[in-house]
């Protein structure tokens, strides 16, 4: 009996895995991004779907690779951008919508932050440039860029033990870095940076005052940093941590952090820049027993997606939670939702949001004893405020030890996920690409009749416009079960589907998948015919 139950469970599990793999919008099988012995891979994706990845190679140098857009793109050969003989770590990358890319990293040998820039015109990475001041330690570097500039921030520690947030700005037109400068007082850490399309730059950090507080500084376009514009975001009474910041196209940042509100338990808080001040923080979460990672993504409209990994008093497992802020809704976030499975330990969420407010979340799911860790993902549909599809979608293959996921989501909606596979010196990096395809808009699903003399053909008619962010080639229409294909119709004039000889009084449901010119397929979207 037990054997039978075990077999049934195994079969059910395999069926579930197979279904998820079939339904996955991620490219499969994953690309092998690197050789073995690598670590610390990061990735960024721009509006057109071009991605850049950087990692610490097996020989200890920073390597980068570019992947063109589309499902058929493949990673280019790796370019080593750091100087040999140096101990380096923590590469972070950014790519703008033009395709210029930048990577900064920590040089532990020289105790500096270094950078390399790759203009899209030449496609050649520059030699490593030191962008930080002399220090005894630098770490937690971050970088952000737009089409005009790139900004790096990091924690800088001097010989006296003062830890400050330092920054430097790269001018893309002159391809030169400015002069590094300190943004914070001593006792700071955990910086994050964002650059708006108008070049408004905002940096957030945590600093030790009476308690650990969240502070931020905003630099207007064309202006210099000013210590006078530093503002406190979190309350003074308790410790705050894990700050993250993003910005919309109008230069208004959104910030989130974790706040130990009663000295023991935490909440996730968020605040929005109102043009002259930060709004009063609001709680995005319920009471949390612990918070391990907080991530934020903001698009040009100001739609924001916040994710965090946390435990609660009743849930000892780390689960992934999310909350969303819709543009024009002030600082009013949606209620938190649990993104991951409630029975499995998870870690390291990453989030990205496209120009439409659709969000992608990935995280590491530790399935069994840490030997079978899967990178999972979910897709949040802005228009319906729903997860679509409702189930979790696996990014990596089951049965292997995946970990350390990183995610790049471009404003165009395409995304790249990278993660490490294996353990010890055998670790290598895999990558999967999500080529965005949006559903048609203004869709109507109607029952119509074509009446001849003596006969009437009842038919279902689906009509819709192509999504303006899409280049759909075809639409595939399935029955409600999502597997029985009815027809694939051209998309040159939008969604135009008809099914004839329907029965009176029976109104079918269809699932429609967009097949995009970039090779991407949308999730199936359901439409039920009405009178």
């Amino acid at each position, binding site marked *: 009996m037990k054997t039978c139950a075990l077999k049934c469970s195994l079969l059910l599990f395999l069926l579930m895995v197979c279904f998820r793999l079939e339904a996955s919008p991620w490219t499969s099988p994953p690309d092998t991004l690197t050789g073995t012995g690598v670590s610390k891979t990061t990735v960024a994706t721009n509006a057109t779907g071009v991605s850049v990845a950087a990692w610490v190679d097996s020989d200890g140098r920073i390597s980068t690779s570019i992947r063109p857009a589309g499902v058929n793109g493949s990673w280019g050969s790796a370019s080593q951008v750091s100087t040999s003989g140096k101990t380096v770590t923590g590469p972070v990358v950014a790519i703008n919508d033009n395709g210029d890319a930048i990577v900064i990293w920590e040089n532990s040998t020289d105790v500096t932050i270094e950078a390399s820039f790759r203009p899209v015109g030449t496609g050649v990475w520059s030699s490593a440039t030191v962008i930080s001041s002399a220090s005894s330690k630098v770490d937690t570097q971050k970088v952000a860029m737009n089409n005009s500039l790139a900004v790096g921030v990091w924690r800088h520690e001097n010989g006296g033990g003062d830890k400050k947030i330092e920054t430097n700005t790269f001018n893309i037109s002159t391809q030169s870095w400015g002069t590094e400068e300190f943004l914070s007082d001593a006792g700071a850490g955990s910086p994050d940076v964002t650059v708006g399309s108008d070049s408004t730059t905002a940096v957030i950090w945590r600093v030790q005052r009476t308690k650990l507080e969240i502070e931020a500084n905003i630099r207007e376009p064309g202006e210099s940093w000013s210590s006078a514009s530093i503002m406190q975001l979190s309350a003074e009474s308790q410790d705050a941590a894990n700050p993250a910041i993003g910005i919309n196209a109008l230069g208004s940042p959104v910030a989130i952090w974790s706040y130990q509100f009663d000295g023991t338990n935490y909440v996730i808080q968020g605040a929005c820049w109102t043009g002259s001040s930060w709004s009063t923080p609001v709680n995005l979460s319920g009471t949390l027993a612990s918070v391990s990672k907080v991530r934020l993504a903001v698009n040009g409209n100001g739609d924001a997606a916040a994710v965090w990994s946390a435990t609660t008093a009743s849930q000892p497992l780390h689960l992934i939670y999310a909350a969303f802020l819709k543009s024009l809704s002030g600082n009013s976030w949606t209620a938190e939702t649990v993104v991951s499975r409630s029975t499995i330990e998870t870690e390291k969420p990453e989030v990205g949001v496209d120009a439409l407010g659709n969000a992608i979340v990935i995280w590491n799911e530790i399935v069994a004893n840490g030997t079978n860790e899967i990178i999972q993902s979910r897709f949040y549909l802005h228009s319906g405020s729903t997860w679509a599809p409702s189930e979790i979608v696996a990014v990596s293959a089951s049965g292997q030890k995946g970990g350390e996921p990183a995610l790049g989501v471009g404003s165009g909606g395409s995304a790249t996920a990278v993660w490490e596979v294996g353990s010890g010196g055998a670790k290598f990096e895999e990558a999967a690409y999500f080529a965005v395809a949006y559903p048609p808009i203004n869709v109507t699903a109607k029952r119509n009749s*074509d009446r*001849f*003399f*003596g*006969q009437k*053909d009842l038919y279902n008619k689906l009509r819709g416009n192509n999504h303006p962010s899409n280049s759909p080639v075809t639409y595939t229409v399935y029955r409600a079960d999502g597997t029985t294909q009815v027809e694939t119709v051209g998309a040159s004039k939008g969604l135009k589907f008809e099914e*004839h000889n329907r029965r009176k009084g029976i109104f079918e449901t269809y699932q429609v998948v967009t097949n995009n010119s970039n090779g991407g397929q949308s999730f199936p979207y359901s439409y039920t015919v009405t009178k």
Partner: protein
Amino acid sequence: MKKWLFLLFLAAAPLCASNEVRVQGKVGFFYPASKEFQDVYGGGLIYGPEISWRFMPCLDLFADAMYFQKGGKSLGLKKHTRIKMLPASLGIKLAVPLPSLEVYFGAALKYFSLKIHNSSPYVSRSISKDGFGWGITSGVSVLLPKNFFFDIFLEYMSKKFNFHCNKQVISNDSIQVGGGIIGGSIGYRF
């Protein structure tokens, strides 16, 4: 009423007994009785020959065949459809002679032959129907010199067909293909 008609017939019989044969060409406007027919095809020209034989005083045995053909569009997707109808009649007319005129009333058994072609794969593409119906007519014949005559008539014909087909469509159990005709004819009396 029947009695009065019969008496009228007997009184008029000696006046119109001529044993003549008439041949005429008829043209009229067919106005379908069915709204569905109207919506899909509308009315149209109907025409054909008629031959009659005055076999008894004031009684004509007549036979005619009218032809109606009309294209139309389906109500919805506006697919082309065409109908062809040939109602053939065998009937009797009662003629009431007046100076230079004849007023007549008639009834006929009609045989309808109907063909429809629909340009849609989702309904029956070709439909052929045949069957008996009936018709009544009334008119005025104006007797012209040299045995010619001119006729103005009203007619109503009726026939219902059912349109069951193999495809999964909503079909009418019984639909009227007849309707009214107003028309005229010109003919020759032998």
